[in-house]
């Protein structure tokens, strides 16, 4: 199979306006991924499927990943003027930067006819609250149908162009998206008083020989 760089270059040559970047994977698996811009993602997916060399006709796995907002502490060198006003010097300064979070959809593609793979595609939403729409790849690979419904259900990514986007594992009236990192379980714990005292007292009344040490509550 072509390397990911070759695939990236060919995609960039075919779709000059599209954003395609490689996200390296430092683990020994070395399965790096292509990060696609939202606007041309479906055309690029169809290109990868129909390209005679790649022919990635099989989308094995589609899933979501939640990346919450992250505070990053950085050391930045800044230039300040010295106290006597004569010159400037460099000072290390600790800066806290907020890296905005996003939701990510990940697709693992293989080729059944060419017997190669995987090529990993990723798409990212604008943020985690109101810009959570991504283009659906179900028109390209039918196997995304249920898996994108699952991503919508558990992560809350809305797939534009999906034929039947409903919840699939949780029930329809459920409100939240449980696989998000900041999901809080609803506080639906119900304490139910169990009438042990009454039961034990009744049992004591039915003893064949009523004795003073008949079981009482709490014994």
């Amino acid at each position, binding site marked *: 199979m072509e390397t990911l760089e070759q695939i990236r270059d060919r995609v960039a040559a075919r779709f000059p306006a599209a954003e395609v970047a490689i996200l390296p*994977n430092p*683990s*020994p*698996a070395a399965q790096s991924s292509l990060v696609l811009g939202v606007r041309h993602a479906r055309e690029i997916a169809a290109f990868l499927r129909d390209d005679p060399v790649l022919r990635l*006709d099989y989308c094995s796995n589609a*899933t979501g*990943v939640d990346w919450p907002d992250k505070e990053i502490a950085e050391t930045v060198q800044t230039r300040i003027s010295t106290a006597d006003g004569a010159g400037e010097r460099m000072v290390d300064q600790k800066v806290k930067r907020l890296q905005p979070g996003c939701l990510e959809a990940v697709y693992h593609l293989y080729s059944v006819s060419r017997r190669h793979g995987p090529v990993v595609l990723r798409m990212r939403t604008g943020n985690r609250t109101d810009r959570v729409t991504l283009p659906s790849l179900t028109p390209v690979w039918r196997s995304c149908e249920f898996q994108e419904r699952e991503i919508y259900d558990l992560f809350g990514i809305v797939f534009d162009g999906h034929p039947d986007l409903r919840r699939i*594992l949780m029930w329809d009236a459920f409100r939240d998206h449980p696989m998000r990192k900041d999901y809080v379980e609803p506080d639906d714990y119900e304490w139910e008083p169990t009438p042990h005292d009454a039961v034990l007292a009744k049992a004591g009344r039915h003893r064949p020989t009523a004795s003073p040490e008949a079981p009482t509550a709490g014994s």
Partner: protein
Amino acid sequence: MRADLNVPAAGNGIAAPPEAFSVDPPAPFDSTGPRIRPVRDEFHGDLLEVSMGPHHPSTHGVFRMVVTLDGETIVKLKPVFGYLHRNHEKLGEATTYLSSMPYTDRLDYFCAMTNNWAYALAVEKLAGLSVPPRAEYLRVILAELTRLLNHTCLAGFLLQDCGASGTPLMYAFREREKILDLFEALSGSRMMCNFQRFGGCRVDAPTGWLDAARRVAEGYPRFLDEFEGLITGNEIVMARTQGVGRLPAALAISAGVTGPMLRAAGVAYDLRKVDGYGYYPRFDFRVPFGGDGDTYDRYMIRILEMRESVAILQQALRDVPAGPVMDPKARLRGFRPKPGEAYGRIEGPKGEIGFYLISDGGPNPYRYRVRAPSFVNLTILEDLCLGHTVADAVIILGSIDIVLGEVDR
């Protein structure tokens, strides 16, 4: 012998029909009481929506099909599931890598050994661990035993769905029990085996276990011959399954259908050959594939695969070397793989089972994803059932081979 067969014969030797034989006239229409609305006649012709399940014996668990019927013909089918959903993936992210291993047993509870292997393989890819040869052989032996067990049960359940009540299923369960005994002797548990570890297997096989496995493998072809003699050429089975639920190869690939379902559709795609994971390239076996992609092919593929599994088992049990079963460098406690991600997949009995893991360097996976084969294989259930009857939908679902523990996760 019924009395009305004793009517005098007519001149041509054929018994004349009894004159008393008649159908009761239909009861007068009562507009006040409860009545059954006719599904389709010249006045109505409308559709009926039937909810099959979740508590229905033919749905193999708590699975629901909302079926829209035109007469008895299915015109729409929507699968509804999630009744067993416990957010397995969230649990996996809340526990350490090792603690997820017993949970994977509960995904597809027929195939705990292959679930374990798929998860172990993904973690080994993520952390770059190696597996000693004896453990690789044990994994192949256990995976093929699991395949035998799963396909045997599936054939039994499929016949049960066809209406062959009891006997084939009990024959299948008799053989399954022998394999479960082997699993129990090895791992201490019949179904929830929790046997594989990252970098090997939990324990070595006890004394005499390999001989017992050899005896099971040697006896299996005899059972297959017996089972096939009853089922494969059976006219009723053929009439019920041939041409029912045809799956075209192009749709199967696009819909991500894997495993025996895909091969029955005529696509010879087996990860044991394609990926060559584990020690599978060392074994001599063939990949059967079908032509029509109908329910009969899906049954037949599994029978043929079982024969190949027996061949793999015999080679593996002959060649299994001595040695350790755990990589000495593998650390089970305090296991923290370096940041990165990995997708590992194996050919489970139901199809491609994959695990996608993202590590952020901590003791728990940042993302833990299960690619469940029967979940994805359900995508084309509606396509297979359209135009068939409810009774066909039952056996089509049976031939897809779902386990709800894995579908719902």
